[in-house]
């Protein structure tokens, strides 16, 4: 029940734009060489297996979300994918090259935005960018141009000469992302990039990610915020205790657990009569009348809603508000693991 209440606060307007859905469809129709392909990744620390057989692919322009609670194995998986950790088993291929700790060529195709703010506080924003840009082989006018460009993207152009220790938390987060974008990587890895960020900066970060994928960059996004995964990701891998326990689009995942949409309708009039009439509609499974509201359990909210409103009109019920609540990934995770994402 608590899960459902959280979901009702979500605004339908923040759903993925239609343009992205079309691109996603195009990707699924034609087989495009994935930017990232990892399979059978295993990492053990002593007796503990942190990652156990993780594998997935990300195509250009696609955002893959690795969703799981803290300690699920997300960061360890990311560390192997970007060549920081040597896997005990499995392999990682990025842009056609195998990634290992010593594989410098493959690493050049990856942009990493670590979970922690990985910046030098005693250097300015620009100096940080220059240092990391140089490590990725950028120099001269190309480097200067890229620095200006990413500063513009993250909205820090006017503060670039200030030392990072003078930045707010949100500004540091944005600069942290800018470093990852500097060398125009084919694969951008964002490891929990919005942890501890104010809502304004968080929204700016999510908008940036959407822009980048629209431009064709492949993004691996790890998070334990279900809302972010739902907003950004074309596909989601749900990870728990080192294993991917379910994978697919949001629809595919919610369909797996057989959940239905809920419609919460508030109005005045003969609500009992309206509920009885509505139950006869195809696709409506249940209706519960509360204090001035009726809650319907339906197969698909979008399909049922127009007909439901017609019935309300005939039953002389004056509808004041309607909310369609789709099943979410939190519910999927709860169903699969028996625990919440923030447990």
């Amino acid at each position, binding site marked *: 029940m608590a899960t459902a209440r959280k979901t009702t606060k979500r605004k339908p307007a923040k759903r993925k734009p239609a343009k992205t859905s079309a691109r996603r469809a195009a990707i699924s129709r034609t087989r495009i060489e994935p930017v990232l392909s990892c399979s059978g990744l295993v990492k053990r620390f002593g007796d503990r297996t942190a990652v156990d057989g993780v594998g997935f692919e990300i195509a250009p322009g696609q955002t893959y979300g690795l969703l799981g609670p803290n300690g699920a194995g997300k960061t360890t998986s990311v560390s192997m994918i970007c060549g920081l950790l040597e896997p005990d088993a499995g392999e990682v291929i990025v842009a056609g090259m195998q990634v290992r*700790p*010593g594989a410098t060529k493959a690493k050049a195709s990856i942009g990493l935005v670590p979970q922690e703010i990985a910046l030098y506080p005693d250097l300015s924003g620009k100096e940080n960018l220059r240092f990391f840009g140089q*490590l*990725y082989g950028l120099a001269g006018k190309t480097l200067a141009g890229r620095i200006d460009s990413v500063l513009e993207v993250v909205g820090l152009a006017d503060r670039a000469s200030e030392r990072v220790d003078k930045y707010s938390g949100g500004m540091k987060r944005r600069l942290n992302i800018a470093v990852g974008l500097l060398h125009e990587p084919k694969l951008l890895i964002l490891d929990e990039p919005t942890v501890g960020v104010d809502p304004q900066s968080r929204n700016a970060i999510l908008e940036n990610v959407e822009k980048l994928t629209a431009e064709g960059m492949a993004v691996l996004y790890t998070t334990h915020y279900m809302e972010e995964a739902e907003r950004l990701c074309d596909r989601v891998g749900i990870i728990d205790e080192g294993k991917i326990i379910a994978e697919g689009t949001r629809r595919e995942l919610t369909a797996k657990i057989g959940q239905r949409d809920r419609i919460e309708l508030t109005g005045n009039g003969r609500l009992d009569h309206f509920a009885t009439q509505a139950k006869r509609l195809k696709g409506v499974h249940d209706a519960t009348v509360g204090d001035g509201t009726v809650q319907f359990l339906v197969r698909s909210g979008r399909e049922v809603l127009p007909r439901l409103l017609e019935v309300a009109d005939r039953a002389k019920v004056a509808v004041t508000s309607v909310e369609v609540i789709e099943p979410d990934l939190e519910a999927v995770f709860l169903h699969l693991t028996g625990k919440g994402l923030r447990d």
Partner: protein
Amino acid sequence: MRAILIIAWKDLKQRLRDRSAIVAAFIAPLGIAFIVSAAFGGGFVDSFEATYAVVDQDQSVVSKAFTEQVLGGPQFEEQVTIRPMKDPVAARRLVASGDVGAAFVIPPGFAEAVTNGRAASITVLRNPEAEIASDVAVAIADGYTTQINASRLAVATTLRVQGQPLDPDRLTELANASAADRIPIELVDGEVGVREVSGVNYFGPAMAVFSLFFTTAFVARSLIAERQEGTLPRVLAAPVPRSSVVLGKASSAFVLGLVSFTVMFLIFGLLLDVSWGDPLALVVLTVATVLAVMGLMTVAQTGARTIEGADAVAQVMTVTLALLGGSFFPIFQMPEIMQRLSYLTPNGWALRGYTDIAYDGATLGDLGPHLAAITAFAVVTGGLGIWRSRKIA
């Protein structure tokens, strides 16, 4: 190589913005060297002066020659003051009270024993609290008795070879000639610690090496700081060889160490007109020393998991090596055991090298043992540090 330079430059920039690093690398060594040098005055040899009591119970020509020509001779004019006494007990009391560095007692019959070929000796009453003055007194007495014995042997040998008695005039002439052919008696270098070393010449490099421990530790600890602050994984995720991180940081420590030494050499050279000796030998010795200290600190830092742990190890290592290696006290004035232990430290070898260059005019060719020992420290500790840095992520 490019990555090493990029990392080194970034680290240098960070260090130069940190005031504590500037203090550790430049201001502290200069300041301490100035203070310690001032405490030692112009040097170590100028401070040697001794007052000796002399009890001449023989009052012969031979005994007076010891007091007037040996102790009162021009070679000891500036260092030795004679206090003639009649009573050996009073002389012993003066020695015990520390009023004199030592006392010479020439017993009655000294000259007669010399003339008749019997054993002749001068007693030296030592003051245990004036070790150097006592040692010098013993050396002077030894030198004089050796001289007498040599003269006597020369005369006796001549008589035996001649096979017949000489006339008295010829015998006197022979004895005088033998006595004139003196075995030199002078202050000697080495064990008694009277080598002429100026304070700045010793403590300049001593403090520069001492501060080098802090300078290199400062840079090396940044490896742990980067790991804790999360920048290290980001650097290691970049397309650069893993070893370039450690080598880049080591390079910045190397540059900072060299600049610290150069500033010290220049400032003392220009302001105090200190002569450091052969420049080539100086440069090579300094490079080797910086590398060795860097190696030691890398071992300390790569073995630690936290900055606090690394600092604790580095501090213990620094103080121990500084004490053993002569950073606080001149090596040649330390007890024998400490002098031997100083061979186990790179700074001990380095300070021997710097004093050899400055005072003995040693050149690069003379520094073979010093450079071999210091380089061995650098190779072993640096190699160990780089090997351990493989697991820095």
